[in-house]
């Protein structure tokens, strides 16, 4: 792999940019690998990268039914933060946030991580009590999070309407300054390039249709529409389709898949300096480097794999955005899309071993998986390589639904589910 640098740009500038090489290759699948990862999103590609880099396992394939990063990695609103309530959550999201901080250098790929601050608006006494509880829990755990008065919130984000007569009056806000955004596609591409450079095979347009198991129930490989691919270990990182893939191995996981929508506006000049979320009226918004306002809406109430969603959901979110930021009332929305999120009963992810020997699962990230990409990938690689979870991810096991040791982030996540 040729390193990207200012000298590479200068060199290519002098030869009409004819020397750039492909960022990753598309090899024919081998008959067998040490590890097969199902799903080439950020989590799957990242896990393959860390398997190669930190655990020396390079005979790895990442299998993807569509195109690389075309699922939820390319459909989210790119928000990064780690101000969760419980230690199990803080462990993994903070691990992730620390990796985000050095990710561009690590991958030699600009993922455009921008710690512009994530501000959560409080609209009532309950919000205020809940956010202050989060702030205290976070600070005791060494994670930055602070309380702002309405005036301080307005100073941090000038388009915000904090007037007493606002439809959704604001009585304060919680701010995590290290939170922010990153370029979602670049995360998938950066991991793919770095993983491919270490010998990982990325196989796109290859749909897993079955998981083959041996006489003792152990995993032997995956059946795909391009034939059987053997594997000693299989890691499933299939987001909204995790239930479907796990069912192939006879494992039921406590998930329900629902569409989550997002939309972007026409490009504007820089006007919105941070990320703002409001749990109570359900809206979150930031501005991309292209200038588009990136707006996240809610999930539909029913199970669906349609990758679309009801119009009433985004209407509700835009109602809230227009009230919080009256300046955006005449902005035109340009595109809208949906992704399928895999939600667990306690709204915390599942990462761990399964009853099937050699089969590992990373799912249940629900509406908030993007921020966890580097941390989740890093710990998933550890799980696959060692066969047991890393200390930071030990609480996220599948067994917690039997033992009752749930991580109840349902009310603690930033937005209502």
């Amino acid at each position, binding site marked *: 792999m040729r390193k990207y640098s200012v000298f590479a740009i200068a060199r290519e500038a002098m030869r009409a940019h004819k020397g750039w090489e492909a960022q990753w290759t598309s090899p024919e699948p081998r008959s067998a690998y040490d590890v097969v990862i199902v799903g080439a999103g950020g989590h799957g590609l990242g896990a393959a990268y860390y398997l190669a880099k930190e655990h020396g396992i390079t005979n790895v394939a990442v299998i993807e039914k569509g195109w690389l990063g075309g699922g939820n990695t390319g459909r989210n609103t790119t928000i990064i933060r780690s101000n969760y309530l419980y230690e199990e959550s803080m462990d993994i999201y903070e691990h992730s946030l620390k990796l985000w901080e050095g990710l561009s250098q690590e991958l030699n790929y600009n993922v455009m991580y921008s710690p512009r601050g994530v501000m959560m608006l409080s609209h009532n006494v309950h919000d205020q009590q809940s956010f202050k509880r989060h702030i205290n829990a976070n600070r005791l755990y060494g994670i930055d999070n602070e309380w702002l008065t309405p005036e301080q919130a307005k100073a941090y984000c000038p388009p915000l309407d904090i007037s007493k007569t606002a439809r959704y009056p604001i009585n304060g806000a919680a701010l995590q300054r290290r939170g922010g955004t990153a370029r979602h596609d670049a995360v998938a591409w950066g991991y793919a390039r770095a993983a491919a450079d270490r010998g990982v095979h990325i196989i796109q347009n290859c749909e897993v249709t079955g998981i083959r198991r041996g006489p003792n129930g152990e995993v032997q490989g995956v059946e795909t529409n391009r034939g059987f691919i053997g594997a000693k270990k299989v890691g499933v990182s299939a987001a909204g389709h995790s239930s479907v893939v796990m069912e192939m191995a006879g494992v039921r*996981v*406590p*998930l*329900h*898949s629902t569409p989550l929508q997002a939309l972007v506006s026409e490009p504007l000049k820089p006007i919105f300096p941070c990320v703002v979320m409001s749990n109570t009226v359900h809206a979150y918004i930031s501005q991309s480097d292209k200038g588009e306002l990136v707006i996240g809406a809610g999930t539909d109430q029913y*199970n669906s*794999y349609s990758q679309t969603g*009801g119009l*009433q959901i985004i209407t509700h979110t835009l109602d809230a955005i227009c009230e919080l930021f009256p300046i955006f009332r005449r902005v035109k929305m340009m595109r809208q899309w949906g992704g399928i999120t895999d939600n667990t009963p306690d709204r915390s992810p599942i990462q761990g071993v399964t009853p099937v020997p050699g089969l590992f699962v990373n799912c249940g990230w629900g509406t908030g998986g993007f921020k966890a990409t580097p941390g989740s990938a890093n710990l998933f690689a550890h799980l696959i390589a060692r066969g047991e979870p890393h200390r930071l991810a030990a609480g996220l096991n599948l067994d917690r639904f*039997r033992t009752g040791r749930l991580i109840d982030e349902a009310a603690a996540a930033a937005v209502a589910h």
Partner: protein
Amino acid sequence: MLLIHCPYCEEDRSELEFRWAGEAHIARPENIAAITDEEFAEYFFLRNNEKGLTYERWRHIHGCGRFFNAARDTVSDRFLMTYKAGLPKQSIPPAEEATAVAEEKTVETWEATEGDAR
């Protein structure tokens, strides 16, 4: 937004009047204190989450207020049937299921909603 047929009101109404209520036909264990942790986890947490035909409960919360069951395709979001609570799981004629899959109506049109409702 979905258009849902309430089997009690016998009318097609907007999704806004309804609340989704999870998988249908889950029987509560007779003696919940006697079952194992595995059985409880299965009863309480594990759901089918099918891609394709699913059986689910809905409640006409802003209408008659009653629970009923529905058979729906989770890829097209098309309702194949709604039926009253208490009835056994209804079988879907294969022809109808095939049509639903073939049509793959992921986008609602005026003809499919307003036109039909008229």
